[in-house]
């Protein structure tokens, strides 16, 4: 007896294998619910989506070959071509029109089914032609003498009223299960506190949740389904039954259930909504957060001194201070861009000054005091230090260091340094009155 059972098991297994090998990869569920793509060919066997009502049209599972077979499930015992509303696709008794169809000899496959609406000799195809509208047109694989639709290959067509001319919507593989229902969950065996003492819809540790997968309206028999319970969106190991008992570890988490629909090699997952945060149990809020981040290699930039075009220092009106004609001013902002993020070499900036000249009169450059400053508001680079410069007019020496950036110092977010300098020109007492001009030459050098 035991041996018999074992043999039967082997037979069944091999039968199942046969089925899976007979159902080729052609069957990819379509977004309109079709068991697989149906491509339409006209009387010249040219692919088309638009047809006259009585135009010749045959179906094929291939978009390139007009004679690719449509494969019905192995359990199919009959087939029909049909024209129906979407809601009645699986209800032969409510099809608008249909015609009997034969399998290719010795197979459960259909070769070039005649899908012309005018060839659907049973029912009322002319009613469809008259009214127009959106219909499904295709092949149904049936059992129970044509009463049960096991699978259907069809296109959604839009029929123009009166002329009956129609256009088939594009084929589209259903990768998200748009034709499949969403599962739901419910607390079927509540624990303490009693439902009457709970907030509506709350879930407590210890409750038993039951999933409802909601049978697909189209071809429920074609799908195998599997449950997977999830905690905060992550699969809970081994919890694939229709029911789930909420455990301590679920405290303060949210539970949901997935149904994985499998048919013709296509898996589609539909997820329920999540429960509210699970209450009760001993779990506490808290935990660790692990982090992981990627780093992209930086590209080294450049070092640049930026002085506005026609830059000119400004001086105020001269005044007599300690019996010297003295005037003060500012150099004006100059900018250093250092985007050498990788090497951060650092830099030195120095200034040289020419003698002041007015006609044939000259004031020596040593009479110009120059004290550099860092304009902090505009500077992001760190490690930039202004030099002392020449504080004393009359004994200044040039060239003089203005500022430097320390090697390996952070360049900040922009690598920008803005510098200025306070200027004081103290003319010798012998100098003739007049307006004297000079230039400052800035030199930037990398370290």
């Amino acid at each position, binding site marked *: 007896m035991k041996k018999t059972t074992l043999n039967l098991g082997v037979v069944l297994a091999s039968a199942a294998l046969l089925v899976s090998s007979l159902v080729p990869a052609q069957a990819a569920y379509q977004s309109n619910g079709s068991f697989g793509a149906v491509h339409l060919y006209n009387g010249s066997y040219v692919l088309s989506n638009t047809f006259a009502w009585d135009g*010749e049209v045959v179906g094929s599972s291939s978009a390139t070959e007009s004679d690719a077979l449509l494969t019905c499930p192995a359990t199919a015992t009959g087939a029909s071509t049909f024209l129906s509303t979407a809601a009645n696709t699986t209800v032969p008794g409510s099809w608008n029109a249909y015609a009997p169809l*034969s*399998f*290719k000899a010795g197979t459960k496959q259909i070769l*070039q089914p*005649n899908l012309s609406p005018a*060839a*659907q*000799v049973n029912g009322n195809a*002319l009613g469809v032609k008259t009214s127009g509208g959106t219909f499904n047109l295709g092949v149904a694989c049936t059992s129970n003498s044509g009463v049960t639709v096991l699978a259907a290959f069809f296109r959604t067509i839009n029929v123009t009223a009166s002329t009956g001319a129609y256009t088939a919507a594009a084929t589209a593989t259903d990768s998200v299960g748009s034709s499949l229902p969403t599962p739901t969950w419910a607390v079927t065996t509540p624990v303490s506190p009693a439902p009457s003492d709970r907030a509506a819809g709350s879930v407590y540790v210890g409750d038993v949740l039951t999933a409802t997968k909601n049978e697909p309206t189209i071809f429920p028999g074609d799908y195998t389904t599997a449950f997977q319970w999830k905690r905060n969106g992550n699969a809970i190991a081994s919890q694939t039954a229709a029911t789930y008992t909420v455990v301590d570890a679920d405290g303060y988490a949210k539970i949901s259930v997935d149904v994985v629909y499998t048919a013709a090699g296509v898996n589609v997952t539909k997820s329920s909504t999540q429960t509210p945060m699970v209450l009760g149990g001993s779990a506490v809020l808290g935990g660790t957060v692990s982090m992981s981040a990627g780093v992209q290699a930086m590209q080294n930039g450049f070092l640049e001194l930026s002085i506005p075009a026609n830059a000119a220092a400004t001086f105020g009106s001269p005044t007599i201070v300690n019996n010297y004609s003295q005037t003060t001013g500012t150099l004006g902002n100059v900018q250093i861009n250092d985007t050498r993020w990788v090497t951060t070499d650092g830099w030195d900036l120095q200034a040289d000054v020419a003698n002041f000249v007015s006609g044939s009169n000259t004031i020596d450059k040593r009479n110009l005091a120059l004290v550099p400053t860092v304009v902090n508001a505009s500077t992001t680079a760190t490690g930039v230090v202004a030099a002392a410069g020449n504080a004393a007019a009359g004994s200044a020496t040039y060239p003089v260091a203005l500022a430097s950036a320390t090697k390996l110092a952070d360049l900040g977010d922009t690598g920008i340094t803005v510098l200025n300098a306070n200027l004081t020109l103290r003319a010798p007492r012998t100098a003739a009155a007049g307006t004297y001009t000079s230039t400052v030459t800035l030199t930037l050098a990398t370290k």
Partner: protein
Amino acid sequence: MKVKKLVATVAVFGAGFAAFSTGSTVQAEPVSNSYVVVGSDTIEDVLNALANGTAITGSTVRVTQNGATLGSFDATGSPSIITRPGGVRFSRPNGSGEGYRALSASIYEGATASNNLFNSSTYQVIGGTNVTGTTAGYTSATYLPAGIRNINIYGQVDIARSSSLSPVSSTESVSTDPLATIVRVPFGRDAIALAFAPTLASAVCAAGNDSDAGAGCTPYLTVAQLKAVFEGATTQNINGTDVAIQGVIPQTGSGTRKDFETFTGVSTNLLGTAVTNGVVAVSQEHDATALTGNQVAPMSASRWIAMSNKASFDKSGSAIIGSAYTATTLGVSPVLGAAGSMTPNPAYYADTTWGRDTFLFVEKARVTPGDVKYDANLAALVDPSLNKLANVETTGASKAGKVKALFGLLAPTTTALGYFKPAYSGAK
């Protein structure tokens, strides 16, 4: 609820039983819900396949029109038929000639069976009584019992099948003839071959008339030999050997018989005398199951192929297919390949005499655009550019032409339409 269901089931069974019992006594066959096709035995099976739906190509091919199926009636079966809902019962047209006559009678209101429509020596049946004719020259008007002569079959037939270029003598005309109210549409190319009883086949082959010598036996007879046999000769000298031969001719009205008579040049009178004297036997065309001894009968090659491939009901019996020897055929076998995958032999079908096109006949006015009787649906059915009855494309499994090929028909060599006068006296 359960009780209700049970009651409903019983009611359904009851209705089904009642319908069945009523139908079996009143009406033997379903009626057509659109067009009615009658006539030739030769192409009845392929036309039935197209009208009823066939999967012989692998695809389901069924010629329908505007959502309606056709009704194609066999040449033989129950003696009489009703073709339309509420239609009259009339003799089943057996063969191309009777099909043509029935179409003629269907066109004109007032044409009746008494108008010499069914000039058949075999039968006229009404009310379950089979009346068998006896002599040539019989007319239904004088022969039929009173009360059943005037059967008006106006509008009961739409299409006549024909294996013959001109199924009724002296009816072919030209398109400009106002009396030519029937049009002929090419259907497919057949050939007339010969079915030999095994004994005769062996004798003929042994005598040297064997185009397949060494590899089998494909017997042939010359046209002169056939003419002699069907005019009453009982032996023929074949290459010096006397071989006893008996001809078996299809029933009157058969297109194959008419063509055979024409192709061999046999005298209709001498053939009639030979039949009367029992020298030449008569049998239903394309039924070789009864051929015995030294008998030979004309046989449609396409029917032979269809029967051998099991596309048609197999009535080949143990007969051997052979051929008529002409300068073109050289006696080659009309068919190629073995049963199951047999195909026409184009070399034989190409013979201008023994190869023959088959046709459909319809009323001209109904397929002529602009005519008050123009019927776009009927016109579509016989439009060779559509995948309907006249289609000859063999490129795809969904094509009617492909079905014809598997039934042993090649594309017709005649492509032009023909114009014919109705076949009864006093045509309008």
